[in-house]
């Protein structure tokens, strides 16, 4: 299951690269910050700081970005508990019991519980990844081009189905991303969609496009909507109470583990991540509780369920990203962008050939949870002041950093231009309900999908009946239909009824 030689090598790799350790505390801090400020999201943080990793080696670069991911998971819980405002969509369920606890004066305890649950949750998610990644890669390596094509389409479709917007709009966004990815000089030696511009020979730069779609467009959306936090009462936090909460979470370890396992499994599925994991886990904990009526009135188990699940979904998402090379959400899409920036192609071949690096990534992420515990504790005390920072100041500053970062990546004005253009397109997409995540994933897997499609075509000689001889492809298509159709039918039937009547 685990390749022990590679594991030892991974340990040595981690010990011999100090940079991999130095970048973690700042990463966690950035994640805590962006998670804790309502409106700013973890994907904005990861997108904006992606260019910084240009100057790092692969391992520290990815550890830095996953540290932002990890920090953001707990950062979002702070305003959720203190002010009933989830810092990101992953902490919605944290408000259900976290805020009532704060109203009862038990906010220190709630923060401690949330922190411990986040730490254990992240740890469990990565343990799962460590256990399955090698085996999974072994299987996936045996898949041929037709199978990989089905897997890529499957991933895209799941993101389209499981999104908040309609299925049709998800498909539109995915196709848009695929088409944009084909701009430039193709593998078959053809110039596509460049309009004769030298700049576009290499295509639309994926990372500035990703920064524009994830970060800039969301920041435009935030403008003019100041969150009402100025009048929220901020409470004094005492270290003793936090430790009490941490202890309480460790005593309720079965609940933490249950939440973590739910989060991990939900995280594996493309299209859903922390934002679904926390709600699913909360619902499950409530259903299995001896007295469900205590939920929503300040039950620590509610905070545990939500925080353990939103943190562990990170490790689950990494399973899909590493094994298949397909990102399931915004965070893993940015990681795939970072892979590309360092000329690494995610997927089974990478795992098989660089098992030590993959294990080092996983071990590094497990070690990060201890850093999260320390940095997160310190952060709780300053969080009150940070959360009150007016968002209108943060918006232009974050955009300015993103533009400079984009210039650093492309080395010319195409980078900033792409950020601005993709930001505008992303803003329109969000406004009219098209999921930007599907577009970004389409953009990132487009090259792989086209490659597998062309290879399938060449092997089969253009004969579609070829797939009838490939049982695994047929099985995968069957699974694809099984996983996508029920959701579609439910939507078509209940679409009118389920519209929120607020």
């Amino acid at each position, binding site marked *: 299951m685990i390749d022990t030689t590679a594991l030892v090598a991974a340990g040595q790799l981690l010990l011999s690269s100090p940079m991999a350790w130095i970048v973690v505390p700042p990463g966690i801090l950035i994640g805590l910050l962006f998670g804790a400020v309502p409106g700013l999201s973890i994907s904005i943080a990861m997108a904006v700081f992606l260019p910084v990793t240009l100057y790092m080696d692969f391992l520290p670069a990815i550890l830095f970005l996953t540290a932002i991911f990890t920090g953001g998971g707990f950062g979002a819980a702070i305003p959720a508990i203190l002010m009933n405002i989830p810092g990101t969509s992953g902490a919605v369920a944290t408000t259900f019991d976290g805020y009532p606890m704060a109203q009862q004066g038990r906010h220190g305890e709630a923060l401690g519980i949330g922190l411990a649950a986040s730490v254990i949750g992240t740890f469990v998610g990565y343990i799962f990844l460590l256990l399955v990644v090698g085996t999974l890669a072994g299987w996936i390596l045996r898949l041929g081009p037709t199978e990989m094509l089905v897997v890529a389409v499957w991933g895209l479709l799941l993101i389209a189905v499981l999104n908040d917007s309609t299925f049709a*709009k998800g498909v539109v966004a995915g196709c848009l991303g*695929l*088409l944009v990815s084909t701009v430039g000089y193709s593998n078959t030696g053809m110039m596509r969609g460049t309009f004769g511009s030298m700049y576009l020979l290499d295509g639309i730069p994926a990372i500035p496009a990703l920064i524009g779609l994830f970060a800039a467009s969301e920041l435009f959306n935030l403008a003019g909507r100041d969150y009402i936090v100025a009048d929220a009462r901020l409470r004094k936090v005492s270290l003793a109470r936090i430790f009490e909460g941490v202890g309480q979470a460790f005593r309720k370890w079965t609940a933490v583990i249950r939440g973590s396992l739910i989060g991990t499994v939900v995280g594996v599925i493309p299209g859903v991540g922390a934002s679904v994991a926390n709600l699913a886990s909360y619902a499950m904990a409530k259903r299995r509780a001896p007295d469900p009526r205590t939920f929503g009135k300040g039950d620590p188990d509610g905070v545990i369920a939500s925080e353990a699940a939103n943190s562990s979904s990170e490790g689950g998402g990494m399973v899909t990203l590493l094994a298949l090379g397909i990102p399931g959400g915004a965070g893993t899409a940015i990681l795939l962008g970072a892979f590309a920036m360092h000329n690494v192609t995610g997927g089974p071949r990478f795992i098989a050939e660089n098992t030590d690096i993959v294990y080092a990534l996983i071990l590094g992420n497990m070690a990060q949870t201890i850093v999260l515990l320390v940095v997160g504790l310190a952060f709780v005390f300053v969080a009150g002041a940070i959360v009150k920072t007016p968002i209108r100041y943060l918006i232009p500053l974050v955009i300015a950093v993103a533009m400079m970062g984009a210039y650093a990546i492309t080395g010319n004005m195409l980078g900033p231009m792409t950020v601005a253009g993709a930001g505008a397109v992303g803003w329109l997409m969000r406004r009219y309900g098209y999921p930007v995540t599907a577009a970004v994933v389409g953009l990132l897997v487009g090259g792989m999908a086209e490659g597998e499609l062309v290879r399938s075509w060449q092997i089969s000689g253009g004969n579609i009946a070829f797939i009838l001889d490939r049982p695994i492809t047929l099985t995968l298509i069957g699974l694809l239909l099984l996983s996508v159709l029920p959701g579609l039918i439910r939507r078509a039937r209940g679409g009118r009824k389920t519209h929120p009547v607020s």
Partner: protein
Amino acid sequence: MSHSPKQASARRSLAALVRAPGALLFALALALAMGFYAWSILDSARRTTDWLLIVPAALVGIAALVFALTGDLKGLFTAPSAEKPAPQAEPGDAPASGWFSGDVVGFALMLLVLGYALALPWLGFDLGTFLFVALALLIQGERRWLRLVFVSILSAGLFVYVFKTLLGVRLPTLFL
């Protein structure tokens, strides 16, 4: 918020009406772009593999756009209030003032960023960033001038210093 449900519903239906032409135009533009791209590729392709991904993706995209649009329009005519609120429309973030001011500010900011990108080759990152931050704060309603100028100068200077001197990126600049 102090709005009655009736007011809120009227407000939503009006917002949906205002959005409808935009949704139509956006979908149309997307469909045209996809169609034109696929057609131009098909026109100049020499082998099947040149268009193997692009043409099907464009066709699926256009078909899905038609579905998406009928869904939008149906929602508009049958039950205007059924329009899903924007994902950001959480209870905590009412528009600052007026009915659509949030959207207008967002749109203005989007144009400003496009202008920032286009002006960068001439203004450089130092002056360009200063002007961008100052104007962005102005658009968002900041009227404390001293603070506005201070933040813009400080951020432009600091960011250019970090990227140019610390990270060694050759940012084009005017003064710094």
